């Protein structure tokens, strides 16, 4: 059972507006992916597309750096903290752990379907956005817990390789 509840910033007007914008992104992604899969797209195609988008973000939206701490400042902004009800729970020279209580994409998908297996697949495909960003730094992503898998929060580990 998916639990996707923000505990903080729920009365914050900026957070409400930005969450609504991200829910809308989730609805667009769902609409295109669902129709695309019906028309012959594969999950690998979806992953490839979103990974490319993530790499583009890595090169254009975040600081180009070899330091995970510098990257974290550009990634875990006050805005993202509010939108996802998120927090950095670990930050070392080698690893950034970002935990979120709320995913607006999942909220958008739940407008259309209760098929939690599909939502979990779509969630993991969408996490290619961060994997693509990690590719642009030569780092890697681990995803031990996700809201879409019923864990109640997402734990996103961005780390230097080996």
């Amino acid at each position, binding site marked *: 059972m998916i639990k996707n509840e923000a505990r903080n910033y729920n009365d914050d007007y900026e957070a409400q507006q930005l969450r609504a914008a991200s829910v809308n992104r989730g609805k667009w992604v769902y609409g295109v992916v669902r*129709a695309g899969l019906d028309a*012959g797209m594969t999950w690998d195609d979806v992953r490839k597309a979103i990974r490319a988008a993530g790499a583009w973000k890595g090169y254009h939206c975040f600081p180009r750096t070899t330091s995970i701490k510098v990257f974290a400042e550009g990634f875990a902004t006050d805005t993202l903290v509010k939108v996802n009800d998120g927090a950095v729970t670990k930050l070392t020279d080698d690893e950034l752990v970002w935990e979120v209580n709320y995913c607006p994409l999942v909220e958008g998908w739940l407008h259309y379907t209760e098929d939690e297996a599909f939502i979990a697949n779509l969630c993991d495909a969408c996490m290619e956005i961060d994997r693509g960003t990690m590719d642009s730094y030569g780092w890697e992503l681990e995803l031990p817990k996700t809201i879409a898998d019923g864990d109640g929060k997402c734990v996103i580990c961005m780390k230097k390789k080996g």
Partner: protein
Amino acid sequence: MIKNLPTITDDLIVKLRKASEDRGLWYYYLLKTAHDKGLDIEDFARKGIRAVGRSNRYKYPDTEDLEIFVDAFMDDISKNLFEMELKGIENGTAQIDFHYCPMCGAWTQITDDQKFIENICDIAMDVDRGLFDTYDCFEFKLGKTICQGHDTCEIFISKK
């Protein structure tokens, strides 16, 4: 040549603009990947986006009054995000010009293939066509667009 420069600098609008550009980024890569694979984006992406548009009906009023609908369509956030201007309501038709498109703002950062941008812009506008599918009393027409190289996107909403 696409001209698409935002002028509003309000902090929340700038953040929402980035959020819409991000949506444009995801949408672009999904459609580009499908197109490059040889799939007909005209067929499937229009279906998907139009369905999204129909599902947005709950955000809009149950009304047959064009002015009430236009007020809702041009709420404060949308008005500033798209830099909308109500040109007028005459003979049962409202013309709204959009002076900035955040999704186009993303696409022009990724590619200079204007033909592809024009194509995915028109598919994206199916979100509005889908919304108007849910109204028996209004119809939607898209005039010139920023992605075609014009200064604004022209939206016409008419009473049937």
